[in-house]
């Protein structure tokens, strides 16, 4: 490749410095070099006018609709997760309340069938024993009230999640 071709390529690649551009201009006094440049520019012009293929009709609408439906699916997944967390929470709370009630009964009557099991569980660690000693008849009532309040709050939260889901579903369907 001679120097002119090299400069021409740099020019076509839009990577030519001012000094090199001046050098290229000097070569253009030669007719054949000038023709090369003209034809190269002509080719560039032809390529740059190549028509871009158009998208089918309503493409934007279709994409936005698909996006809305994807977002709805995401929000359903989110709601399901929230519901799962809440159900798990209620389940654990019920177990705790059940254990507390059983422990209280065992404390007063000593006739519950879970006696040995509870005794084993509660005495198996210091932490369990601390919890056991903290549970008295009065505290069980307090725990019951607190648990009920938590359950009510939980119910309200679940109801709101459900309402929000229905709202989104209606928006999507409309």
């Amino acid at each position, binding site marked *: 490749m001679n120097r002119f071709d090299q400069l021409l390529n740099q020019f076509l*690649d839009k*990577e030519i410095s001012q000094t090199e551009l001046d050098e290229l201009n000097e070569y253009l006094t030669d007719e054949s070099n000038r023709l090369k440049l003209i034809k190269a520019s002509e080719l*560039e012009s032809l390529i*740059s006018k190549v028509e871009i293929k158009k*998208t089918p009709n309503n493409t*934007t609408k279709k994409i936005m609709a698909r*996006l809305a439906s994807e977002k709805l699916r995401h929000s359903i997944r989110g709601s399901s997760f929230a519901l799962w967390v809440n159900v798990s929470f209620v389940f654990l709370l019920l177990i705790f309340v059940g254990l507390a009630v059983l422990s209280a009964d065992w404390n007063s009557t000593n006739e519950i069938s879970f006696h040995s099991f509870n005794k084993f569980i509660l005495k198996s660690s210091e932490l369990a024993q601390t919890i056991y000693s903290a549970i008295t008849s009065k505290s069980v009532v307090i725990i019951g009230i607190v648990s009920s309040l938590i359950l009510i709050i939980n119910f309200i939260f679940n109801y709101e999640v459900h309402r929000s889901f229905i709202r989104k579903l209606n928006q999507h369907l409309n």
Partner: protein
Amino acid sequence: MKNISDDEIIDSIKRGNDKDFSLLIDRYKDRTFSLIDRILKNEFDSEEVLQDVFLKVYYSLKNFKGESKFSTWLYRISFNTALTKAKSKSRKIETEMQSIDDYEITINSEEIFKISDDRQHFVYKLLDRLPVRNSLVLILFYVDNLTMSEISEVLGVSIVNVKVMLHRSRNLLRDLLIKNDYLRVNYE
């Protein structure tokens, strides 16, 4: 709408104005579709991939830091998604596999010449038959006005490779145009 920059639209979407995403779609759908269709060569698949691309873009927008131009980022996602689609369909993209050297030997420019209305159409048809990467390099450089560095980012190849592909594709097109008397000058 033309005065609003891509960055401004993206900021608006990030602030929660989801409907502004349609502005980005309107601005880039045709170019993106054209790029995808050049790889898949099937309008139905290309439309499906176009939708996938814009969904990916929407969900990744929060990670877009603006280090590169939005168009470069969008084209890279489009190129990769289209290639994945082509591979998943086990479609042999002949032009993708074919080297430009083979192309020079096998191309029947007379046949393309016969079905072309004018030289603009002839160039379009030739571009359509070039190996995918070579035609993409030309389109991205001359139609989309991307720099060599941006093209290398889109195609995942080095800048040197882009330069080589650009030179060879340009020379091949030039020779074919001269051969068919569309550029009436003999270079060599």
